């Protein structure tokens, strides 16, 4: 026990495939019309994960910052796109703002954890940096898109209210701060909710993975605590960052709200 992970063979994977086939048969029998989509989804799952498996194997083997950094850049770019694509409204430059925010918040938290908490040497050890960055990006992009969505919705729908405040002598910051605060709050809700119930309702994937891989539960728990705090920190930074950048674009030096920049998707 605890001697390390039991290696899976392709036969084992084939057996697991049987489980998806069961789902497909159920769909066909009940005419749910999901069989095709399920097949596509199962195929994509297998192919995407296999590809990433080979990429990671290659990146781990080369173990060089010159490979790690472009991989990180690519991950952040994809996350930035996803963050903006999930919002119901945009403004020119939203993608850039999301990207800048993700770069700052994800790198700051990833390297705080690898350097100050775990103490990874060398700093570019991909085995630590890539999974941590991946988790951070996944969570902070959710936070950022929720925050941006709330912020743009309120700036465009409450234009009258904000202009009323401006008209009474409010600075742009005074007129915007309620909206900014609520938007950051909206972005933070998912991570706070999951911190509330972690371990009670579900075991997080990372922790489950460590336990399956044969690590002692308490060590897995310690890692998970670090991860949850890291995700909370990254999400908070990400939400605040994107809210401030959007604020800078949507209000000008004349303390005007430029609601016309916001477009519905």
């Amino acid at each position, binding site marked *: 026990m605890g001697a390390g992970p039991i290696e899976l063979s392709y036969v084992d994977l084939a057996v697991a495939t049987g489980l998806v086939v069961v789902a497909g048969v159920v769909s066909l029998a009940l005419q749910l019309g999901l069989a095709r989509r399920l097949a596509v989804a199962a195929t994509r799952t297998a192919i995407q994960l296999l590809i990433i498996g080979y990429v990671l194997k290659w990146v781990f083997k080369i173990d060089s910052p010159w490979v790690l950094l472009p991989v990180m850049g690519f991950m952040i770019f994809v996350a930035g796109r996803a963050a903006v694509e999930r919002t119901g409204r945009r403004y020119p430059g939203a993608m850039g703002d999301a990207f800048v925010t993700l770069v700052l918040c994800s790198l700051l938290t990833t390297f705080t954890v690898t350097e100050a908490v775990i103490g990874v040497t060398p700093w570019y050890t991909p085995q630590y940096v890539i999974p941590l960055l991946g988790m951070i990006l996944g969570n902070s992009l959710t936070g950022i898109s929720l925050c941006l969505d709330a912020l743009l919705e309120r700036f465009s729908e409450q234009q*009258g*209210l904000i*202009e*009323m*405040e*401006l*008209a*009474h*002598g*409010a*600075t742009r910051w*005074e007129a915007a701060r309620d909206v900014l605060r609520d938007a950051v709050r909206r972005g933070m809700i998912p991570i706070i909710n999951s911190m509330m119930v972690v371990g009670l309702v579900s075991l997080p994937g990372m922790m489950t993975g460590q336990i399956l891989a044969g690590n002692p539960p308490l060590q897995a728990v310690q890692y998970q605590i670090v991860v949850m705090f890291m995700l909370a920190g990254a999400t908070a930074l990400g939400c605040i960052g994107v809210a401030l950048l959007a604020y800078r674009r949507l209000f000008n030096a*004349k*303390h*005007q709200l430029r609601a016309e920049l916001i477009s519905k998707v």
Partner: protein
Amino acid sequence: MQQQQAVNKTPTFRVDGLAVAAGGRTLITGFAVQIEVGEVVGVTGPSGCGKSTLLRALAGLIDPIAGEIRFCGQRPEEMGWPLFRAQVLHLSQRPTVLARSVRENLRRPFGYRHARRAYSEGRARTLLERVGLDRSQIEQAARSLSVGEQQRVCLVRALLLGPAVLLLDEPTSALDQETRDAVEALIREEAATGNLSALVVSHDRAQVGRWCGREVDLAPCLVKGGG
């Protein structure tokens, strides 16, 4: 006496050659007006001709495409836009209140950095009464009031702040005759004390004639096909 003349030389509010556009189309060009202390000036023009856009530009909520605005001889950029707007206060036609009590709505602008005076509950209640609202309504949720009541709460909020110039956009559009008369009388009285001037935009020529000492007709400033 000399000082008096100096004050008279610089009008409270002066606009020259103002042009505004909406949606890429020029609506009004060459608008000019000069408002002295205590004056109530009416601006008339047909519905949809760009009066509201003009008024928003006068408060700097949107950029005019040309022209100059001065408050007591100063350009808004020089004094800072928030300070300028607290002095040249724009009141939109559609009443806009926060989802809080009337009192909190009235207090709100006093929390801004540029507010020059403190909130006075006594004056707030007096003004509410003057425009035909009940003193006790100050406790009510502002959004539970009717549109006409909200319009008057907004006017009281603006007056409390003590601006030098009020830019009023159809300020009595949702009021019945009695409350409309009360609002007109209140503005006239405030102006008569010399602490307030007003620029009133209205489609109602009769109201302007009754209320305002002077009328500026927008007709010569309207761009053809701009309505």
